[in-house]
């Protein structure tokens, strides 16, 4: 369309000019053979975007974390790991997010396994399962406080049935946050697992059944290996959701104590103490811990099931 695209069929008399155009075309051809041409320019806006709004701020944050107000470049990291109140936030976060993510994935598998076939009300059930995605943190938090609180319907029922004499304390502590993660995370995990399960060809299981495998053998030997990569992805995404829990840890939790998760520490450092190097340090460490868990899960999956994931999908 433009000058570079037109072939060198010009009536330019100068031989060196023609050869220059010629080499330019040759270079263009050589690049095109390797897959580089002007169409790749369509990528530029998105790439610039990611570089300016993600990579640059992240690098800036990493740089900031090495420039604390006092001490050497690693002073902020040293402070983080020597201060038990800060250091323990990692453990608190993992203690909340790992079991919650595991529970969400583990509970999704049997339910999705049941829901694979066609049956009446499947659409309705799926829709109902999706609804919690719309709830939002605040409604979940208010609902948990109302429902599980000391005078809420849950404790009222337990007291009326006679299962307990005193109301059980389920809010403003670890459990409140845990339930809130489960409520928001489960529908998400379920949808993912259901879609991965639907992608597995049912004839494979039927073939195994003909050979005499019972349902456990079929699940253990066929479905589970084929599902494993999907489960690993689901776990990672659910874990990211649970790991970044921030508002509900404050609203239904105990933000100064048992549910002081790492994002609260990062927010405190940035917007309460205005210690940006420390906030950047915590953010970097948070990302590192999270990526380590994801790498461990994906690595473990690759170690176990590389052969089985390659083929067999219907």
């Amino acid at each position, binding site marked *: 369309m433009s000058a570079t695209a037109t072939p060198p069929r010009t009536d330019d008399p100068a031989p060196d000019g023609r050869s220059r155009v010629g080499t330019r075309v040759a270079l263009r051809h050589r690049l095109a053979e390797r897959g580089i041409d002007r169409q790749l320019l369509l990528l530029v806006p998105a790439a610039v975007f990611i570089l300016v*709004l993600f990579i640059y701020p992240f690098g800036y944050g990493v740089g900031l974390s090495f420039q604390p107000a006092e001490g050497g470049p690693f002073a902020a990291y040293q402070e983080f790991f020597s201060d038990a109140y800060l250091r323990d936030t990692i453990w608190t976060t993992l203690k909340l997010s790992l079991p919650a993510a595991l529970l969400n994935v583990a509970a999704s598998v049997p339910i999705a396994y049941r829901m694979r076939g066609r049956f009446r009300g499947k659409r309705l059930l799926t829709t109902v399962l999706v609804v919690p995605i719309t*709830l939002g943190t605040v409604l979940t938090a208010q609902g948990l406080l109302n429902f599980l609180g000391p005078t809420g319907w849950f404790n009222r029922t337990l007291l009326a049935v006679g299962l307990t004499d005193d109301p059980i304390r389920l809010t403003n502590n670890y459990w409140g946050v845990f339930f809130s993660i489960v409520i928001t995370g489960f529908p998400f995990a379920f949808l993912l697992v259901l879609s991965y399960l639907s992608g597995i060809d049912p004839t494979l299981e039927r073939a195994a059944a003909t050979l005499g495998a019972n349902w456990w053998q079929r699940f253990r030997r066929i479905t589970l290996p084929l599902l494993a990569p999907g489960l690993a992805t689901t776990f990672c995404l659910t874990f990211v959701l649970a790991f970044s829990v921030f508002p509900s840890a404050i609203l239904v939790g105990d933000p100064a104590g048992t549910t002081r998760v790492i994002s609260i520490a990062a927010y405190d450092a940035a917007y309460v103490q205005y210690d940006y190097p420390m906030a950047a340090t915590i953010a970097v460490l948070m990302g590192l811990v999270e990526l380590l868990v994801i790498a461990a899960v994906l690595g473990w999956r690759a170690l176990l099931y590389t052969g089985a994931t390659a083929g067999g999908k219907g």
Partner: protein
Amino acid sequence: MTSSGTTLARRRRRLVARPAAWLIWGVVAFFFVNLAGVIGSVLVSSFGNRWFDTWFPQEFTTKWYGQSWQEFGLFQVLVVTLEVSLLVVGISVLVGVPAAYVLARRSFPGRRLLYLLFLLPILMPPITYGIPLATVLYKYGFAGHLSGVVLANLVPSVPFVILTMTPFIEQIDPAVERAARMCGAGTRQIFVRILAPLLTPGILAASILVLVRTVGMFELTFLTAGPDSQTLVVALYYSMSAAGIRAQQSIDAMAVMYTAMMLVLLVIALRFVNPTQLVARVREDVD
């Protein structure tokens, strides 16, 4: 044929009646009962007046809705929410779709690296990049205004559009494009005349999903919003964390309004997107 059909049906019925099945459905039912309790208690509370140590409030009223609408300046908040999400949807589609097209169709050096780069903002918790991003946005004077909120929300949205659009693009036969090129169409004409109409369902799906995500995105908006650029989630959070000043019921009413809005958005989204299919198709490409 009929006899085999009936035995199959009988066997299926017996399968459902297994103890394990009952256990699973029992757990599901328990989850739903409690979920209904959680939602119901907020709903009842938002219509209730004087609810203390009883099963239900003593009287019902709708005054909390009017009150929270006035008190929290919800009209302004809704306008901001709408502005932010529409801008984010528009820009992320404009930037993301061409990139998704190239990533889906072409192979070139560095493609995998670029893909990983686009995957990272989705794999990282928003707070981890949100805090450095907010610092940078404050440095250049964007944060605290609508522009900062939009920029921050674009970070996960552009990669999301790319990941959602890739399978839609792969479904289009490249022969159609080649034919158009034979007839002399340029890249821009191919985009406008051929790809855009074929991709409309995919673009709609991606837009609605980005819309739902942006309306619900708390952390990034929270970190970058100023007093007059709060979206609904952030306003809700502030009203709840500053508890004691306002009646709890008016917060409940606001939360119900938020959820109703999200529900409408989600129902619209489900009309265009089959959630299970979408994920399965995306996965194939991510791997």
